[in-house]
């Protein structure tokens, strides 16, 4: 996808995010731009200040969606500058050295949706819909693929060696289009919602129609609360970026 194409304007999608608990920080992050580049990231709460790491990833993607090894090195360098490692107490230093982990899901929408590129590292989910039907999902296609140990991007490069085996332009990317779809929509979500959606996809009531009705932060928060209470959604930070009927 060329940079010229990226100049195509599109309106901002809806975006909502709720923390795992009211009194705990939300380690998900999202960023939307008027040029059709949007990203979300799920910071792993087991790691050191993953909220800042997730924020750096989405902001950088929105600025420059060409994900490369150099891109990642620059992001890691930005994160490291946030802290004075040498002055940290030993335990904080140990956590800092172990690294912060986060997913990255980015989308570039060009030419009014004729060209959509999805980049995914980790277990955040992009979904292409036509009306209430799911046309494609990436990078996960079944609920059972959500595991407790997804491969995430880390501030400690020794944990990113899995990326060395990958062709970034092929293994991490899906190319979609809104062409030929009557009622196209693009959804991006972190894993709790992604798992919910894929485990509900064969129900009579389409999960897409449920999400389509959520138009305000309050409605989204109530929906997440109800699904958690019913045991259908795991308690985790939950984020949705939704671009309906482009």
């Amino acid at each position: 996808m060329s940079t010229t194409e990226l100049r195509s304007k599109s309106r901002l999608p809806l975006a909502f995010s709720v923390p795992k608990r009211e009194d705990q920080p939300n380690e998900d992050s999202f960023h939307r731009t008027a040029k059709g580049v949007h990203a979300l990231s799920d910071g792993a709460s087991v790691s050191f200040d993953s909220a800042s790491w997730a924020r750096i990833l989405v902001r950088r993607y929105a600025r420059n969606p060409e994900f490369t090894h150099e891109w990642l090195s620059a992001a890691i360098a930005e994160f490291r500058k946030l802290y004075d490692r040498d002055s940290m107490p030993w335990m904080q230093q140990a956590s800092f050295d172990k690294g912060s982990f986060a997913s990255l899901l980015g989308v570039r929408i060009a030419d009014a949706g004729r060209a959509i590129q999805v980049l995914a590292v980790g277990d955040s989910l992009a979904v292409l819909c036509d009306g209430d039907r799911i046309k494609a999902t990436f990078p996960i296609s079944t609920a059972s693929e959500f595991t407790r140990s997804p491969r995430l991007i880390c501030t400690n490069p020794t944990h990113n060696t899995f990326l060395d085996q990958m062709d970034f332009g092929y293994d991490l990317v899906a190319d979609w289009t809104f062409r030929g779809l009557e009622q196209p929509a693009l959804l991006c979500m972190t894993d709790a919602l992604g798992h919910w959606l894929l485990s509900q996809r064969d129900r009579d009531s389409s999960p897409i129609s449920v999400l389509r009705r959520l138009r305000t932060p309050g409605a989204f928060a109530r929906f997440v609360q109800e699904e958690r209470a019913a045991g259908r959604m795991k308690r985790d930070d939950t984020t949705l970026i939704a671009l309906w009927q482009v």
Partner: protein
Amino acid sequence: MAYQAEISRENPTCILFVIDQSGSMDEITEAGRSKAAFVADVLNKTLYTLITSCSKSDGVRNYFDVGVIAYAGSQVTSGFGGALSGEIVHPIQAISENTLRVEERKRKTDDGAGGVIELKTKFPVWFDPKSEGGTPMRAALGKTIETVGGWCEQHPGSYPPTILHVTDGQSTDGAPEEMANGLRQISTKDGQALLFNLHVNTGAGLEIVFPTAESDLNDEYSRMLFRMSSPLPAHLAKFAGDKGYSIADGSRGFIFNGDPQCVVDFFEIGTRPRLVADR
């Protein structure tokens, strides 16, 4: 099925290190350090790893109660100093907050751009090497029975305690086997306490790792340590196999004449439950 209990803050497990500090532990290994210094270093690194594996954004979570029993001469004491010396077992959060000191060491690491840099890293120390006097192994295992028994009474639903016993010599206060047998009888609802024995290399004889039968062993002393050791439960056997050890049905948690790498692996395999603690 035993050894299936989830390890969580509500249901922690217990890891107990029983360390021989007798005079012979001052023998210098091929790496130029005493056995006592090497074991102390591995133990400190193991505690460091346990603590960091329990460190979440809200602090250190008490997935583990950890204790160190040190024995030498006529004494069996807590291996911890300072504020931790009064009791044998402590929640891991208390251990994280009570180091003897923090040293600064250098280590090499990936710089993220294809190079390697040397980083100064803070290294906490809880346990110092000592080596003097005899080997009161029987008394040490008696203290271990008392400690593990009390812990299991308070945690009947937990994954049972793991005891990692490190020695380089023979008991000087009587036969330890019946104490070991008694220790392995203590249980929670999730299974019997696991006793794993590591005999540190003395420079003589073959290394024997996770044997399956007494007949694999040459002398009565190593056969006794074999009998004192628990069979490796399936999940630990798999982990040891993944590390490259030859494991068969009935392999016991016992290493005889273990070299330095065996010592490191023994601690890592024995503290394997850290990897499955509630995330």
